[in-house]
């Protein structure tokens, strides 16, 4: 019987899939969360109500339930055929969008009304003012919250083993079955997640430091 170490390259191959899940999920979540966060600050009642309902739904239902609901329920019923990876990315993204919208809502509010007002007095349209003045500041403020979202999403991505996505945990389980050993494979999987969490948040922190505005302390 092969040893666990011989399977190590196979297990580490799962990192690519995990990155796919996390990268795709974060990107989709950003695309959904940023406009929703802005909508919550600048939108009228008609904008805020559906956003609120969306956030409420995706924050209330467990991730595993969402995965099964979309993979076995909503997608087949609406005639889409998504493979497990694509479906997982979509679900992670939809859910992350709900959380990210709150990161961006908070950071836009933190920028304060005065900045947009000053932009308007120069003759900028609301859109230009938000684009040139509010967003660049809000995105900087959002980075630490976003690092947190990365760390959470990374660990949540392991749940996608339930759909058979070939990420780290799924492969670890195959190795466990093949070697009849549990301790070492799961230990390795744990260490891999620790490294990815540490490395990722470290990189995001570097970005945060690099984009910091000189001398400025945000009033968080």
């Amino acid at each position, binding site marked *: 019987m092969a040893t666990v170490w011989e399977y190590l390259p196979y297990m580490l191959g799962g990192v690519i899939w995990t990155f796919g899940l996390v990268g795709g999920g974060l990107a989709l979540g950003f695309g959904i969360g940023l406009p929703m966060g802005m909508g919550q600050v600048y939108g009228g009642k008609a904008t805020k109500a559906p956003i609120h309902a969306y956030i409420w739904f995706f924050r209330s239902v467990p991730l595993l339930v969402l995965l099964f609901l979309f993979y076995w329920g909503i997608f087949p019923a609406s005639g889409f055929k998504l493979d497990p990876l694509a479906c997982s990315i979509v679900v992670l993204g939809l859910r992350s969008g709900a959380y990210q919208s709150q990161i961006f809502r908070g950071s836009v509010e933190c*920028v304060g009304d*005065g*900045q947009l*007002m*000053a*932009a*308007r*007095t*120069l*003759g*900028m*349209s609301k859109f*230009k003012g938000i684009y*040139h*003045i509010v967003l*660049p*500041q809000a995105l*900087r403020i959002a980075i630490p919250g976003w690092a947190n979202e990365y760390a959470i999403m990374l660990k949540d991505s392991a749940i996608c083993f339930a759909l058979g996505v070939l990420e780290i945990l799924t492969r670890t389980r195959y190795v466990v079955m093949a070697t009849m050993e549990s301790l070492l494979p799961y230990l390795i999987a744990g260490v891999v997640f620790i490294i990815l969490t540490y490395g990722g948040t470290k990189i995001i922190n570097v970005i945060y430091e690099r984009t910091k*505005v*000189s*001398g*400025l*302390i945000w009033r968080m």
Partner: protein
Amino acid sequence: MSEKDVVLKAENIHKSYSGNNVLNGISFEVKRGETKIICGPSGSGKSTVLRCLNLLTRPDEGHVWLEGTEVTSASTDINKIRQKIGFVFQEFNLFNHFNALRNVSIGLEKVKGVKKDEAKKIALEQLARVGLQEHAHKYPAELSGGQKQRVAIARARAINPVIIFYDEPTSALDPQLIGEVLEVMKGLAKERVTSLVVTHEMGFAQSVGDEMLFMVDGRIVERGPPQELIMRCKYDVTKKFFESIQELYGREK
């Protein structure tokens, strides 16, 4: 004085917030080259007047004209109007993520469509006029309050407005920083830059103000040359106000 010399005209401005009347029919004119002072006790609606004039707050009733164009008309492009009105805030509101230079040039670039190099040149000139060319590359957080407000004045001036509004420009400053801002404002007033100034700085009002409007409860209750108004006000409320200010600042020389 012909119609052409009236830069700004406000007629019967009313504004209320949830049933609370803040402005009860404000009317006045600002002529070209004039420095008009608005003062009055806290809560009298001074800042709301400024905000109603460039529609940062929309008045419930009344009309505003800027150089003959009706600001309050639904068909007027308010962004075009605001390019002609410089606005200086009590809290500076400099763009935190831009250095001083970019704070001044951004309006030229993104609103007026001036090329980047040209906008930079104009911004540097404007910063030089408020004595801050050496601080052009500093960020707002690296500047003192007085310097921030001077950058804000340069920013307001850069878009070449026909009038500048000042909303209590020195109220958020430490006493020793007020002087440098007032110096800049006095310089502009002496150059006959048309301005409308909400302030409690009576020394400034007396030395460069052409007319002072005194507001109480959303009404202009007295108006006249600042010196006269301060010395010979008709109403008790005005008298009390000036007395309390003199007590606070000491009698102005």
